[in-house]
C-alpha cells in the first residue's frame, strides 16, 4: 500500500489576501519608507495631506476592499487591524504637524519679509538674464510655495520648473526657518511613522511567507507563456 501523502491546503481566500492586499501594501509601504527617509512628505497645502503617503485602506484597489475586510476579520491575520490603525494615526499625525509647521511659517512676518526681499533680489538679478524665469504668475502665493518646499525638505527642483532658479539661489537662506519646535515635532512624527512602517513591512513579509508555505501559494501570480508551457506539447 502506498504511503499517505499530506495534500497541501489550498485557499482562494488566502490567495486573494496575498495578491490583492499584502503585495500592494508591501509595495506601497516600501515607497512610503523611501519618501519618509528623504524627508519628502509629498505634503500639499491645498489638500493638507501627503499625496503619496496614505492611510492603509487607500493603498488597496477599491474593487478589492471586500477582500481587505475579509483579511482584517479573519483570525489568521490577528493583530494587523490594530497595526493598520496605528499606521493611519501616525500618517494623520505627520499631516497635522506638517500643517502646523506650514501655518507657523506663513503667519510669520519675518518669513514673509524674507520671501519678499528674496523675490525683489531675484527680480533685480533676473533683469537681462533670460535663465531667470518670471515668477509673476506665482505672485502672492510665493510664501506658501516656499513654506511647502521647506515642509517637504526639497533640495532641488527640476530645471524646467519655474521655481528652479529661485530655489537654487535662495534655499539656503530659508533653512533656518526649519528650527522652530513645530518642525522638530514634524521630524519626530516622520521618524516614528518611518520606523513603524518598516516594522509593518517586515511583519507583512513574514506573514506572507507563512501563508504561502501553509497554503502552497506562489508569492505573486505566475504567468507562463503558452509556448513554453507543457500544454504546448499536448496534442
Amino acid at each position, binding site marked *: 500500500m502506498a504511503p499517505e501523502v499530506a495534500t497541501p491546503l489550498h485557499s482562494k481566500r488566502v490567495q486573494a489576501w496575498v495578491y490583492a492586499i499584502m503585495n*500592494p501594501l508591501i509595495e506601497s509601504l*516600501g*515607497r512610503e519608507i*523611501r*519618501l519618509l527617509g528623504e524627508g*519628502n512628505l*509629498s505634503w500639499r497645502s491645498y489638500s493638507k495631506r501627503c*499625496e*503619496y503617503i496614505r492611510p492603509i485602506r487607500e*493603498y*488597496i*484597489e477599491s474593487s478589492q476592499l471586500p477582500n481587505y475586510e475579509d483579511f482584517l476579520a479573519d483570525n489568521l491575520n490577528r493583530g494587523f487591524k490594530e497595526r493598520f490603525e496605528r499606521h493611519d494615526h501616525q500618517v494623520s499625525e505627520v499631516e497635522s504637524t506638517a500643517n502646523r509647521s506650514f501655518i507657523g511659517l506663513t503667519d510669520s512676518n519675518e518669513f514673509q519679509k524674507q520671501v519678499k526681499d528674496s523675490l525683489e533680489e531675484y527680480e533685480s538679478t533676473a533683469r537681462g538674464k*533670460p*535663465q531667470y*524665469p518670471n515668477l509673476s*504668475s506665482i505672485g502672492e502665493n510665493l510664501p506658501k510655495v516656499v513654506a511647502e518646499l521647506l515642509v517637504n525638505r526639497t533640495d532641488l*527642483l*527640476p*530645471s*524646467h*520648473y*519655474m*521655481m*528652479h532658479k529661485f530655489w537654487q539661489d535662495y534655499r539656503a537662506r530659508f533653512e533656518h526657518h526649519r528650527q522652530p519646535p513645530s518642525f522638530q515635532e514634524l521630524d519626530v512624527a516622520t521618524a516614528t511613522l518611518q520606523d513603524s512602517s518598516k516594522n509593518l513591512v517586515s511583519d507583512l513579509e513574514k506573514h506572507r511567507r507563512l501563508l504561502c508555505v501553509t497554503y502552497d501559494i506562489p508569492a505573486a501570480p505566475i504567468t507562463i507563456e503558452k509556448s513554453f508551457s507543457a500544454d504546448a506539447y499536448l496534442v
Partner: protein
Amino acid sequence: MPTSFEGSSRCELLILDTGPIRELVGFHAVDRFGFERLRSDLCFISNPESYRMCTQFVASFRRKTTSASVVAELYRWIRETDPKGQAKLWNRVYEDFQNMGMDEEVVRLVEMDLGLVVTFGPVDVSLLELARRHADHNPVLLTIDSKLYGECKKAGLHVSHLQEVTLMQR
C-alpha cells in the same frame, strides 16, 4: 556649471507633444516618488542624465505650451496604466503642468486642414496649427513622433526629437 542650454540667449516658445510630456512626468514619478511600474513605459528618458538634459532643454524656453488634444492623449495613456495609480499619475501631470507654467490651447477641429487630419490625425495637426499660430515667436516643437518630425522638417518648422535632446553634449 552652466550647460549649453543655459547660455545668454533663451528661446521663446516650446510646443510639447504627448510623448515628451509622458516621459518627463513618468521619469519624475519613478525617480522622485518611486512609481517603479512606470519605468517600463520610458523610452528616451531612462536615467537621471537624460532627464537632466531634457529638463534643461525645456527650461531654455521662456514659454511652454501644448494643445488640449495632447491632454486627451495623456488621458488615453493614463487610463491604460494600473487603475490603482491613475489618480496619483494625474496628480503628477497637474503638478508638472503647474510647476513648468505650461499653457494649453484649444485648436478646433474645423480649423484644421482636412487632408492633414486624414494623414496625421487631429493631435499632430493641432500641434502644427499651434506652430503656425505662434510663428512670430519662432516656436520649436518637441516630439518623439518620427512622422510628425519629418513633416515639420519638410514644412520648414523648427522641430526637435526627444532623442536628439537627451543625447546632446554638455
